[in-house]
């Protein structure tokens, strides 16, 4: 089975823009606040079909 995408490894690699959340046609990504109060995408492994659209639209990955 294909692997769940990794949107960021360090918090410095995510600006919280929501492009990944907006592109996901499965509604598998939600934006959640961390304890510092900044939003980061969280992938629901049950809904994710590993299409990697989220990685393709990420300004940090292009």
């Amino acid at each position, binding site marked *: 089975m294909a692997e769940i995408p990794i949107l960021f490894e*360090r*918090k*410095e*690699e*995510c*600006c*919280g*823009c*929501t*492009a990944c959340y*907006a*592109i996901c046609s499965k509604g598998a990504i939600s*934006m959640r*606040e961390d*304890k*510092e*109060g*900044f*939003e980061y995408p969280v992938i629901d492994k049950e809904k994710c079909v590993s299409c990697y659209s989220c990685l393709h*639209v*990420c*300004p*940090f990955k*292009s």
Partner: protein
Amino acid sequence: MQSIPIKTYAAYSLDDAVRSCSSSGAIFSLLAELILDRQGVVYGVKMSADCYGAEFTSVTDRAELGKLRGSKYLQAKVGDTYRKVRRDLQVGKTVLFTGTGCQVNGLKGLLGQDYDNLICVDVICHGVPSPALWRKYVASKEQQQGEKLKRVNFRCKDLGWSNFGVKEVFQGIVIKEEYIPLKESSYMQMFLHNYSLRPSCYQCRAKKEKQSDVTIADFWGINDVAVEMNDELGVSLVLIRSKKGEKVIGDISKGLCLKEVSYEAGVKKNPSEYYSVAKPPQREAFFEDMTKISYLELSRKYLTTKKRPFKAVAKKKIKAGLELLFRE
């Protein structure tokens, strides 16, 4: 790689009333009015109804533009904004999208194609402060005041543009206004000390790749290049980054006082155009403490503000500004 704009201007709107309630020279307002006149949609950031957060919203009516005016000093919730923008573009509406550079780049990433009917404007960004810190601050202030925060203007020009402060309006039985000089605003000082920023802001990617059509900001170096333009009501720095941007600034130029300057002169006193701020060594400890101690304790621990005769200085500057006005 840094993207140098096509053209750089010092500019302000000729409408003094709108300019006085804008952060800089009211360029956003003029662009927004132009788009609304074309039956378009303007996307920008407003404070939430309870003032506890900032969020993106769309406006199609001039009467509602006021809530998007004025910079908000915390990261805004984007929510479903990108999808709404895409829908508006697909049905042929003209869209003005305003936000930070990374929000513009994120939107463009989602769209994956150019739209002739999309204009993107970003602001020169110092970094985005934590929404949780803002909530903690507001809760603390409301407790102290015994009333609810109704409005906040992070860029109040009552004492002049270059000497701005924060104005907070509390609503109880009576309406209470509080003006806080910048140096005395603990929330703004935490921001200016770079304690309260998002981790990615210390190595901002969006500064290296600008995808907006126009960038707007304060023209802090105005006195070095066009002092005659500084009447203390606010001057904007306008960086044109695309043909579309050039066209749209041309379309509002009748309502502007406009002067072309060099890019170097424009950004000289606004290094956030190309530099990310350095992460202070205390930054992680600051956020650890934010979740553990009260706002007042946090403020006492990280800010050792030396009280200066700030109000006296402010009055002197205003006087100088007024003299300039009368001399013209």
